[in-house]
């Protein structure tokens, strides 16, 4: 579905991404992990062409992305990130309806069909009862659901998620990830998620991409990527890795320096 062919990118002098290649298949849930500054967020921004790589190209269903216009991209790829701009807050319904924007073209107002699509997206994410509430009165968990609903209203094939659970407590993290997992399993949506939380990524993603200083260090199923050697070499700190007692996926435990001997 998405084919990334040896892209390199820099903002100014230093290369932030170097010769990165990978594919994302239809219906996959891919996690992008790596330390601060490894290029996770930049990679996602390139995937929806907020940034254009200096070298290499990205094919979306075999079409070079540089040939797609902004609205085309927004009809197929939705993005959910941490959003904090709530200067003049819109209501939940107004926010979700903005997801219809790429389909409106020069039209000024949404049709009844657009409102219907937004309503279904709000029901799917269980935020319909909040639809008249202004965004600044919602909790962090509710807000992230609104942005998922807005992404659904875009009727995309792919959703890119940039640290979507960073400000949520564990209950809301699980709620959120269960929701997007259901989108992936039941609706066949392709997901690419950048995350700092390797245990979450290991538990939920089909495949992981581990970045180190703008290069792909390792890619594969969580069991092959999250190993003691890989993580210690990329993050430069000691970790303990065993298996999640129920799912059997790799699980990381942090340690104090020399903690193993205590």
């Amino acid at each position, binding site marked *: 579905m998405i084919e990334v062919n040896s892209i390199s990118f820099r903002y100014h002098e230093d290369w932030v991404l170097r010769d990165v290649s990978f594919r994302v298949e239809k219906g996959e849930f891919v996690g992008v992990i790596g330390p601060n500054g490894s290029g996770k967020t930049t990679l996602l921004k390139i995937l929806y062409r907020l940034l254009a790589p200096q070298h290499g190209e990205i094919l979306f269903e075999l079409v070079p992305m540089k040939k797609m216009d902004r609205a085309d991209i927004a009809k197929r790829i939705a993005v959910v990130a941490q959003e904090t701009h709530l200067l003049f807050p819109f*209501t939940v319904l*107004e926010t979700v309806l*903005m997801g219809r924007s790429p389909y409106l073209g020069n039209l000024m*107002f949404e049709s009844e069909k657009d409102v219907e699509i937004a309503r279904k997206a709000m029901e799917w994410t269980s935020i319909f009862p909040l639809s*008249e509430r202004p965004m600044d009165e919602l909790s962090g968990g509710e807000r992230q659901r609104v942005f998922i609903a807005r992404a659904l209203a875009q009727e995309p094939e792919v959703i890119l998620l940039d640290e979507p659970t960073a400000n949520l407590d564990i209950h809301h993290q699980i709620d959120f990830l269960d929701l997007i997992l259901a989108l992936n399993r039941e609706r066949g949506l392709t997901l690419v998620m950048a995350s700092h939380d390797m245990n979450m990524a290991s538990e939920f993603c089909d495949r992981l991409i581990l970045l180190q200083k703008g290069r792909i260090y390792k890619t594969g199923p969580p069991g092959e990527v999250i190993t003691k050697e890989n993580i210690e070499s990329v993050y430069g700190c000691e970790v303990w890795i065993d298996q999640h007692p129920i799912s059997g996926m790799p699980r990381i435990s942090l340690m104090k320096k020399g903690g193993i001997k205590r």
Partner: protein
Amino acid sequence: MKIVTSKKVLTISILLSLLLILVILVSVTLGSVKVPPLRSIRILFLSLLGLKGAGSETERTIILSLRLPRAILAGLVGAGLSVSGATFQALLRNPLADPYILGVSSGAAVGAVIAILLGLGTFSFGLPLASFLGALVTILVVFYFGREDGKIHPNTLLLAGVITGSFLSALIMFFISVSRREELHTIIFWLMGDFSLSNARAILIIFPYILLGVSLLYLRSRQLNLILSGEENAVRLGVDVEKLKLLSYLLASLITAASVSACGLIGFVGLIIPHSVRLIFGPDHRLLIPSAALLGASFLIASDTLARTLLAPVELPVGVITAALGGPFFIYLLRTRKAIRTL
């Protein structure tokens, strides 16, 4: 479900237009020469039909050649400043942004001050034309310095605007310090915003800019909603952000240039009207832009009417009235915001 539809925009626009017409009617009947309200209205309507039936020659002149053009001018400026203020607040995502934030007004002021010192003064095209030129040159300078590698960075543009504005203010101070007493009075009144200096023919200069500017911005109003939550957010939803920014900044600047060239620097309108409309109707630009234009027009006509009648025959600068009237009203709106929202 409560959303902004074309029907809602139309209904509210019609209601606010009726209010605007009412304000214009009241405005033309008030003044140092008393013309009874019904007779003024008859004069207006008959002359609209091309008839001369009502009132004396003097009354017709006062209403049709003095008060009506002045009300129209104030209305255009009020609409222009309100829409331009709303646009800058959205583009810069800054609630304190106003039409003058990019220094366009200071450029207009330099043009105006030079015109006054050269004696082009009040009774010609000179004053509005010179200030409009001053504003245009400033727009070019600010956009030249405010763009990097072909892109507008809001902070860079803002800094370029503020710095250019400060430099031009220094020029204004210099001109003021070397001006004579009689010129000084004119300059100060212009800087405070004043329609008594304005020329009815200025309507011809500013009307196309304000009408075209507001209409073109309105066509972008749905996209302005998206940029309110950040430029990256707008890109994610399919907006060509660079095009949107360039067009909107230029249009809002041109509207400001046209507005201030007619009557000087009227403060507060471009700040308070957009915020008031947001508090009442919500932040959606599809409703905000037409409502702000119509309410801004009514507000400035009303303010100007007060400015010329309150201490008649002495006229106050209208800027004094907009701030004195607008400040308390805005505080009141802020306090009752929650109550308004649940309407």
